């Protein structure tokens, strides 16, 4: 199972990278001498705007149109043609520019980036203004000085805004990690306990271990296997990502990793003890899902609230909801990642969570010792707690 999950993760990362066309500079075809004279200005302006531009001289308009049209059979052999068609073909030119004495034309095949179009327009406009001013008798030096860019400095008032994207990704990563892991491994705890109960293996086990040992071993054992499996899958995905340079992992994710892992462990323990109690109450394996529904509802609710909290992390309802124990593992890391958790809140939240885990473990231990070897129909939560 882990092998398949890991393979799927690697394929999802490596696959798109294989079919992604190699990055190349934006090629602007310059038709005619007037346009070709703008080549240095286009390259300089492009560099200033962060757009890698190269220029190519094109003899006439029909040649430009031909080079703007993507070629669908550019690959060699059948595989090459298949890849080429999957990639949508590659044109020689991205944009063609024609300039004459009275007008200029920017041509592209289907779409062009607004930045590139604005950049080409600005260069043409600047050249036109220069020509008009010089023809009007303005000295070349004055025109040149007027067209020198004024140094403009930028000031960001909200200093943290620049890393908000990375922080949001870190918050999402923490939430998704917990949601997926608890969803899979918490259910595995419930199913494992239910199987030991319904197959009566629990009775043989309880002759050798105490109920609390059995319960703790189940939760920690499945948790460790789960963490190992997740580590293999996430590790393989990160390695694949690094090899194919698919997408950069924001540095904020690494900075927040210890906190993410801490809340993952706390969240897993709280939910896993709950799922273990649910598994001990069933009469048949098929009942696991319905008995563990209260925990599933909190998990899904917390997951959805996490998205809402990322949109408005300083809202009062987020602060209040983030102290409801089953929601804490999803909302506290999100608030932390987004920089909206006061320093004193973290230890307080951890203490509340540890107390909740202890309470849940006691509750589960009680249900375990009375319900695990009990026959008969499925127990309700109240009935299980009343048993002696």
């Amino acid at each position, binding site marked *: 199972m882990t092998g398949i999950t890991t393979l799927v993760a690697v394929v999802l990362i490596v696959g798109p990278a294989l079919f992604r066309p190699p990055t190349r500079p934006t090629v602007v075809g310059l038709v005619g001498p007037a346009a070709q004279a703008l080549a240095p200005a286009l390259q300089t302006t492009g560099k200033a705007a962060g757009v890698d531009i190269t220029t190519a001289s094109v003899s006439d308009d029909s040649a430009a149109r031909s080079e703007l049209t993507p070629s669908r059979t550019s690959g060699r052999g059948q595989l090459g043609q298949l890849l080429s068609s999957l990639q949508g073909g590659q044109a020689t030119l991205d944009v063609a520019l024609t300039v004459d004495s009275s007008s200029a034309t920017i041509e592209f095949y289907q779409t062009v980036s607004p930045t590139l179009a604005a950049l080409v327009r600005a260069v043409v406009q600047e050249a036109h203004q220069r020509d008009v001013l010089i023809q009007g008798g303005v000295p070349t030096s004055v025109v040149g000085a007027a067209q020198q860019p004024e140094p403009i400095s930028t000031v960001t008032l909200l200093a943290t805004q620049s890393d908000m994207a990375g922080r949001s990704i870190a918050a999402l990563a923490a939430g998704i990690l917990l949601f997926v892991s608890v969803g899979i491994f918490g259910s595995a705890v419930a199913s494992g306990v239910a199987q030991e109960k319904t*197959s*009566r*293996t629990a*009775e*043989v086990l*309880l*002759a*050798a*271990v105490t109920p609390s040992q059995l319960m703790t071993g189940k939760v920690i054992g499945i948790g460790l296997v789960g963490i190992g499996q997740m580590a293999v899958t996430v590790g393989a995905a990160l390695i694949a990502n690094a090899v194919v340079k698919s997408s950069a992992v924001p540095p904020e994710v690494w900075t927040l990793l210890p906190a993410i892992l801490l809340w993952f462990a706390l969240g897993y323990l709280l939910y896993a003890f709950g799922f273990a109690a649910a598994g001990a109450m069933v009469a048949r394996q098929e009942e696991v899902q319905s008995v563990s529904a209260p925990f599933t509802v909190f998990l899904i609710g917390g997951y959805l609230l996490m998205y809402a909290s990322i949109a408005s992390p300083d809202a009062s309802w987020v602060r209040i909801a983030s102290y409801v124990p089953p929601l804490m593992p999803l909302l506290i890391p999100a608030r932390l990642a987004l920089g909206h958790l006061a320093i004193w809140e973290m230890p307080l939240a951890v203490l509340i969570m540890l107390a909740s885990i202890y309470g849940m473990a006691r509750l589960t231990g009680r249900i375990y010792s009375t319900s695990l070897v009990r026959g008969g129909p499925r127990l309700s939560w109240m009935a299980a707690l009343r048993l002696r």
Partner: protein
Amino acid sequence: MLEISDLYQSFGERIAVDKLSLTVGKGELVGLVGRNGAGKTTTMRAVMGIFQPLGGSIKWSGRPVALPDRLRFGYMPEERGLYPQMRVLDQIAYFARLHGVELAAARKQAQKWLETLGLEGRGQDRVVALSHGNQQRVQLAVALVYQPELLVLDEPFAGLDPSAVDSLSDVLRAEVARGTAVLFSSHQLDLVERLCQRVVILEQGRVLASGTLDELRARLPQRLRVKVTTSVDWTSGLMGTEVIGSDSEGVLLAIAPGTDTQALLRVAMAAGSVEHFGFESGGLLELYRQLVTS
């Protein structure tokens, strides 16, 4: 020695075991019999610590039973408990490990018990692939693999074919010879009679009777079967006797202690030709019926 004293357990309003006491010595095989709901399983579960009883005490070698003691107890529950998807050898070795046996020794012992119980060559099969009888043998191997000092077996013979019954009987005798104390329950009273040194009969959570078969018989009136060829009712007015049955084999009389049986014989002979005059010692089944109905 296992000593259960005044064991009490109730589930809600229902009293499952009421002031129950019994002992099982080392090298002794004690059979626990009784109708469904008599308290056999509850008693065994209490011994194995599956639940904490509400009253009474359970001691092993003079001390209250604790977890380290139970690691030396072998247990076969009434409803079998095995991991269905685990391989047979791994399963037996796993339970041995759970009872403190080293890995290598656990696998070696598991292999030995597979061979002893006629499951050689099935070690790599999954439990779910075995027949009911073979799963039962695996369950027994799980109880025996760590050489327990006390064996608690709840209905170990249920559902076994005759050859498996013989095989299990041999294993139990061998364990007893090794010095193991064995407490087992069964509804197959012929087996209990054949195997056990002592029998404990439970009824409604209480010990109705316990002891060897002879001791149990001594608790009941002697039974005398007399066949007389006569046309008169010679049994009416006899002192110290009660007619408890009559068929073509004669009449069955319950004889009160101290009754002069020679005088009885003389009355029979006076009535007609005596074809049969002898005591009957019923088997455990008969004893059980008499004890439960009396």
